[in-house]
């Protein structure tokens, strides 16, 4: 399998954007070099033969146990609202998101 890790400035910007934080212009090269190096190193696993191997998503063999939803009272509603940066009556108050 070929290594597909080469990331350019444009792709980096997209990935940082998706990671939901900002980087300074001066940091771009550092971030770019480091991510490419990491992806190149990690590409070593692509040499492992995994045809027919199922992915493992969890550290144990638990099966899902399904049941009907049962509503419960939650005692901390008022405190939860008070723990938020801001609240208005029974609602979390967040900055305006639409113009």
């Amino acid at each position, binding site marked *: 399998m070929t290594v597909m890790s080469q990331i350019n400035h444009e792709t980096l910007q997209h990935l940082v954007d*998706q990671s*939901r934080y900002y980087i300074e212009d001066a940091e771009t090269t550092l971030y770019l070099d480091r*991510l490419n190096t990491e992806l190149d190193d*990690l590409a070593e696993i692509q040499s492992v033969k995994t045809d027919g191997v199922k992915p493992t998503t969890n*550290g*144990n063999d638990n099966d899902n146990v399904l049941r009907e939803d049962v509503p419960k009272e939650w005692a901390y509603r008022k405190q939860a609202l008070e723990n938020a*940066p801001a609240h208005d009556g029974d609602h979390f108050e967040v900055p305006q998101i639409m113009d």
Partner: protein
Amino acid sequence: MTVINETIESLKDKLNNKETTAKAVTEQTLKQIKAVDGDVKAFLTVTEAEALKQAEALDAKGDFSAKLAGIPGSIKDNIVTKGVRTTAASKMLDNFTDPLYDATIIENLIAADAITLGKVNMDEFAMGSTTETSYYQKTKNPWNLDHTPGGSSGGSAASVAAGQVLFSLGSDTGGSIRQPASFNGIVGMKPTYGMVSRYGVIGFASSLDQVGPLTRTVKDNAYVLEAIAGHDENDMTSIQDDVADLTSDIDKGVAGLKIALPKQFLTDAVSKDMQETVAKTVETLKSLGATVEEVELPHVVYSPHVYAILSSGEAASSLARYDGVRFGHRAEDAENMIDMFKKSRTEGFGKEVKRRLLLGTTVLTGDWNQTYFRQAQKVRTLIREDFIKVFKDYDLILGPTTTGEAFALGEEIDPEVAKMNDILTVPVNLAGLPGLSVPAGFGANNLPLGVQFIGKHRDEKTVYQAGYAFEKANDLTGKLPQIGGQN
């Protein structure tokens, strides 16, 4: 009586016989914290008033029959504690001063009448192996203050080694209990995935995270695990079985046990001191009647890669919740919602967290999802199968916990050494197995070295039996840390 020289059993005997009181134990513990924490810097929050109140209530009740009655402990700061600030050592949660509920494991500790003295330092969101990525402070190794305690549960390990508490709860995603246990000359257990509830534990990588105890002795460790383990309906990955009795047969010994020693755990990247320590451990176990043989775990050499990909990918998902909306740090002067998310995260997260989030986002994006993330999940299967194969013929697996002694503060860690350290600890998380680090000796700088016993799924009992037998045969009690080893 000095708390520092006691075990859970001996302290409980003294409480039961009225030779001391929970309040006296708590006061002495607080005194020790005040005496040494200026140097060690293990604690982020000390809950003095609450601990004394808890102790007084226990004394008034006069019943010390609960599993950890009157026993002083500390809690890693990624475990949610009602009314007590819980930060995961991140600026992002600096203002999380009044959590509304206790994690299930804290409820379990309260039910066991343990006395909790406060919250201890860690790498930010448990991402690191030296506790140096904490937003707040750098914790020092009590054996030598120029060295790190390891990480990410560095505050937990240091608080136990420095005699501040008899136990601590840490969390282990890729070695974060066992490596600091090894570096601090104490015992650390990463239990089987699902044995301990993660409800109220601030997530890093959900398929790998597991909470476990750090203590000075193997038996103390088993007592604490008995107290915190058990099914929890609030954690969908929690194992449904009852908790096994881990302590009553702990002195059963290792005679007749078959122990595997994987070649991949003893490469040239492991220090000479550690190689010799493992060789001596093998001799000790053989003298106690165990058989020790070399085996192969061929795919563990890929575990650092698999771990980096899966843990970063899972973290990118787990940490998406920190967006400044409902809780945590919110940046001011944002122009719109997305700008608020980004500014809050830019200000709230440290460098190491940002590095991992970017890698995680990348391996979940586009074609990389298949070539990295999906492939890593498949290699994880092969690593698990290697263990299953070995455990068909063997009862336990033995190896070094770390490549060598604790890193110096600020030390640039050689990438090959870092990779080998991952090979020693990470496979246990990937396969969901129990792993116990037990003090085994000392290196050239007189710093502790630990060995690791790995068991089958849910077989903590055999792991503790082997650790207990080895600890008794390999008495290290004469060696004490620079800080807090004696009163």
